C-alpha cells in the first residue's frame, strides 16, 4: 500500500554562511496510511522541522515530500495552502485558535478559507465529538487550555483530512487534559482511519502511538513499534534528552 506521507532524502538548513544550522540531513521516512507515529528527540534534533516539511508548512532545501499522490516541493504557495485546507489538519502546542473567533468559528475556519459556506451543524457535530458542544459560542479566552486543545482537534477534523499533524499537543496541558486529548487522537486513527504524525517530548504521549521515530542532530537514529512509556523514556535518556 502506498504510504500517506513519504519523505525522501529531505534536507533543510536555516540561516546563511557561518551561522547556518542544519536542521535535517538526508532524512527518509514513510508514514503508512491509518498509522499513528510519534516523533521524538532532544531539543534541536529537527523534530519540528520534519513536521513542517512533511505538512507543507516549510519547504525543504532538497529531497522530496509526497502526500498521497502530490509532490509538495513542486506546488506553489497557493496550491500548498489549498492542500492544507483539504488534506491536512493541525494541532499545535499553543496559540491554536484565532482569539477573535468563537470556538465554532475557529472550527470551520479551514472550510471558510476554502470559500465554502459550512453547513449548519458542521461545527456543532465536530465540537460534540470532542465533548465541547455546549461551548460553541465561547471565545478562546473563555476556555481552559485543555478545552482550547480539543477545539483545535475538532478543527483538524472538520475538513475530514487524511493526515493530522500535531506538534506537542499535550505540552501545555495538565495530566488529565493530556490524557483526554491523546485518547481523542487515538480514536481518530482507530475509528476514522486517519494518519497522525505527532511531535512530542512526553514518553507517555508517545506510548499512545503505533510507532516512535527518534531524531538526533537532524538524522533518524532509531524507531520503535508498539512503544511502552518506560522503554521510550530509557531510549530518550540514552539520546541525552
Amino acid at each position, binding site marked *: 500500500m502506498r504510504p500517506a506521507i513519504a519523505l525522501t532524502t529531505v534536507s533543510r538548513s536555516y540561516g546563511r554562511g557561518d551561522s547556518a544550522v542544519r536542521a535535517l540531513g538526508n532524512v527518509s521516512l514513510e508514514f503508512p496510511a491509518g498509522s499513528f507515529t510519534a516523533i521524538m528527540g532532544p531539543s534541536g534534533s529537527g523534530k519540528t522541522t520534519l513536521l*513542517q516539511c512533511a505538512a507543507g508548512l516549510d519547504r525543504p532545501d532538497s529531497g522530496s515530500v509526497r502526500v498521497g499522490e502530490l509532490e509538495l516541493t513542486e506546488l506553489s504557495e497557493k496550491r500548498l*495552502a489549498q492542500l*492544507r485546507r483539504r488534506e491536512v489538519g493541525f494541532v499545535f502546542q*499553543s*496559540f491554536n485558535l484565532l482569539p477573535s473567533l468563537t470556538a465554532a468559528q475557529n472550527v470551520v475556519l479551514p472550510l*471558510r478559507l476554502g470559500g465554502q459556506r459550512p453547513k449548519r451543524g458542521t461545527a456543532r457535530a465536530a465540537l460534540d465529538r470532542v465533548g465541547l458542544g455546549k461551548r460553541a459560542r465561547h471565545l478562546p479566552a473563555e476556555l481552559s487550555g485543555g478545552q482550547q486543545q480539543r477545539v483545535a482537534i475538532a478543527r483538524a477534523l472538520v475538513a475530514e483530512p487524511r493526515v493530522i499533524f500535531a506538534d506537542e499537543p499535550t505540552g501545555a496541558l495538565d495530566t488529565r487534559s493530556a490524557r483526554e486529548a491523546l485518547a481523542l487522537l487515538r480514536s481518530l486513527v482507530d475509528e476514522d482511519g486517519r494518519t497522525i504524525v505527532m511531535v512530542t517530548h512526553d514518553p507517555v504521549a508517545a506510548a499512545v502511538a503505533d510507532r516512535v521515530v527518534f531524531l538526533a542532530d537532524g538524522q533518524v537514529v532509531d524507531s520503535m513499534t508498539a512503544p511502552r512509556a518506560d522503554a521510550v523514556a530509557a531510549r530518550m535518556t540514552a539520546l541525552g534528552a
Partner: protein
Amino acid sequence: MLAIGLRTLRTRAGSFLGAFIMLAIVATVVASAGQLMASALRDPGPGRFARADLVVRAQSEVTLGRGEAQEIISVPRSARVSDATVTKLADLPGVERAVGDLSVPVSVSGRDAHVHGWPAAALTPYRLTEGRAPRMADEVVLDAGVAHGVHVGEAVRVVTPAGVRTLRMTGIVARQPLQSALFMTDRAARELSGGYDAVALTVAPGFDAQALRTRLGPGMEVLPRSEASAADAGNPRALAQEELFAVIGAGGGMTIFVAIFVVAGTITFITDRRRREIALLRAMGATPGQVRRMLLVETALVGLLAGAVGCGGALLLAGTLADALTNVGVAPEGFTVRPHWIAHVVGLVAGTLVALLASLVAVRRGLKVRPGEALVAAAVPQRRLGPVRAVLGLLALGGGVTLVIALSHDATAYAVLAALCFALGVATLSPLLLGHPAALLGRLIGADGASRFLAGAGLATGRFRVGAVAGPIALVVALAGAQVISIATAGEAVREVSAARVQADHVLVASSGGGLPPEIADRLGATGMVATEVFLLDRELSNGSSAWPAAGLDPETLDGTLDLDVRAGSLTDVRGDGIAVSTRLAEAGDVELGATLSARMADAGPRRLRVVAIYERALGMGDIVLPRALALEHATAPLDSAVFVRGHADVEFPTVERLTRADYFRALDSELEDGAQVQWVVAALMLLMAAMAVFNSGAMAAAERRPELVLARLAGATRGQITRAQTIEALATTAVGIVGGVAIVMASLAGIGNDAQAGTLVVPLGQTAFVLALGATLGLLGTLLPAALLGRARLTANAGLRE
C-alpha cells in the same frame, strides 16, 4: 475571509486606534483643504452684476513659462477700458445696453469702500431707499451700511486716491453683502478712476457670446454672468487665489507625506504583532493572496472610516481654517466656505489611499510570514532593514541633498522642505542612523548598576524599537527647528536691508492698512512708494509661478529718504519705460544694463521695459523699481503703500498715520511676524502629525518592551529598578532623536551661504530653546507615559505567549 478580517478589526480596535486617529487627522486636513479649494474655485457668481448678461473686460490672465511648466495667473484687476470701447459695444447688433463699470477704493469715516458710477447701480440692482440719485460732481449716494448715522443732505468726507473730497449725500441705497458701495455721477467717478474696469452688457435673447469673443480678439475677455464678479475690482473674492492654493497645497501635500510615513510605521507594527495569527491562518490553508486581501481590506476599512470622520471634522473645521487664512492675509476678507460634495469624496479617498499606501510595507512583511511559525511558541521576527526601506530612505536623503545643493540660492525658502526630506530619510533609516548611536550610548551607560545594565541591554538589542521612537522626535525637532531658523534668518535679512535703505525721518502709512492717495506725497514733495508687481515673461526670469514684487518710485524724490545702493546705471533714468532691477534679479536672469524685458503689468497689460539701473537693497521692497506714474496706472489700487518723508512731515489728512523711523521698523517687524504666521499654519499640521507619531511609536515600543521587563521583574528586579531602566532608555532615545533633529536642521541650512537674500544665519535663542524643549518633552512624555500606563497592568500577565 472578509468576515475574519472584520472580526479581527473589532477585537484589535485598540491597536488600530493610533493609526485611525492619525488617518482621521489627515482626512480632516485634506477634506478641509478640499472645501477651501472648492469654495475658492467655485464660479465666483454674478456679484454686483446680477442684472447683466455678459461682462467684458481687458485680458486678465498672464501665462508664465511654456509646456509642462506653464502657469496661468489671473490678476485681480485688468487694464482700463476706454469710453470708446463702451460706445462700440453698445452699437453692436443684439446688445441692448452697455454700461461702463468701475471701482475706486476710498475711505469713508475710517471704513474702506468702493466708488462706482451711478449707472452701474442698476446692474446689481442697488435701489434707492431714501433721497435721489447724484446729479452733480459733488453729490454722492451711500449704501445704508456706510451711511450709518448720516442723513440725506448732510456732508460726507471721502478720502479718494485724488485727495479728500467733501461730498453731499443725496440718497441712500440698500446695502449688499460683502462690499460697501458709494455712487457718484459717472463722470465724477471716471475722473477718479481714469477709465472703466469693465463693461456690463444686457443683450437680446439668442445673442452669440462666442462670436463676440472672436470679434473682440485675445485682448479682451467676455465673462458669462456666473463669473461676472471676477471683473469687479471691488469684490474681495476676486483677490489672489494663487497664494491661497499655494499655502493649501504645500500644507496639505507635506502633511500627507508625513502621514503616510507615520501611519506606515503603526500598521507595520500592528502586522508584526500579528505574525502568529497570520501564520495560523496560513497553516489552516489561507493562501498568500487571501492574507494580502485581508490586510488590505482591514486597513482600507480603517482608512475609509477615518475618512468619514475627517469629512465631518472638515465641515466643523473649514470655517475656522478659512478665518485663520483670512487673518494671516492669505484668503480675502469675507471668504466663506460653502461645503461641496467633492471635498467629501476627496477626504474619503485620501483616508483610504493613505491607509493603503501606508500598509504596503506591512503587507509585504505579512506575506513573508511562514505558516510554520504557528508551530513555534515565541516567534520573534528577526528584523533587518529591508532593501525597499533602505532605497526609500536613501531616496529621501538624496532629495534633501538635491534641494540643499540645487536651490542653495534660495536656501531659506526651501530649508523646511529640505528638513522634511532629510527627516523622513533619517526616520526611514532610523534603526541604522539613530538605533546604532543609541546602542552605543547604551553600551556606555550600561557598565554598572542593574537599571543601567537593563537599559543598556534594551537599547543595544532594540535598534528598531528605539529608532521608531527617535525618528519622529528627530522629525519634530528638524521641522520646527528649520522653520524657526529660516524664518528668523529671512526676517533679519529684511530688517537689515530695510534699515540700510530707509533713511527718511518719517514714514506715512494708511491707518486702515490700505494705501494713501498719491496726492499726499506729491504735495509734500516726499517719496511715495506704490507696492505692485510685474510679471516677467522670459523663462529665466519668471520667478517661479509668481510675479516679481515691484515698487513704483519717483527717482528725483529719493534723496535723503531711500538709499537703494545703486550698483550700475542711474535711478534718475527710471522714467517712461525705464526700470531698475535688483542685483538678485539681474544675476538670476543674466540681465544687463540696457536690456529690454518683455513684461506684463499688475493689470495684465503688456509692456516692454528697459533696464536702466541695477540696485542692491531690494529685500522688503521689491526686485523691480518702476516709474511711479507707470505703477499707479497699472496697480490694483492706485495708492501709495507708504510715503517716506525727509525732515518734518506736516500733514493734516484723515486716515494718515505718521510713523517715526523707529516706529516704521517696529511695524515692519509685526508685518514679518504676520508672514511667519502663514508658514506656521502650514507647519502646525505637520508638527501635529509628527507629535502624534512620537506618542504612537512610544506606545508601541512600550508594548513590545514590556514582556522583557515583566520577565526581569519575575527574575527579581524591583519596581524601582525597572522604572529607572525605562527612564534611562527614554532619556537616551530622546537625546538621540534631538541630536538627529539638530543635525538635520544644520544639514538643511547648509546652503544658506549662497542665498543672497539670507544675509547671516540667525538662530533665535528663545525659539530654538523652545523647539529643543518641545522635542525633549514630547520624547520623554511619549516614551514614559505609555510605559507607566502599561506598567500598571498585572505582573502575572503571561510574559511570552500573549500579545
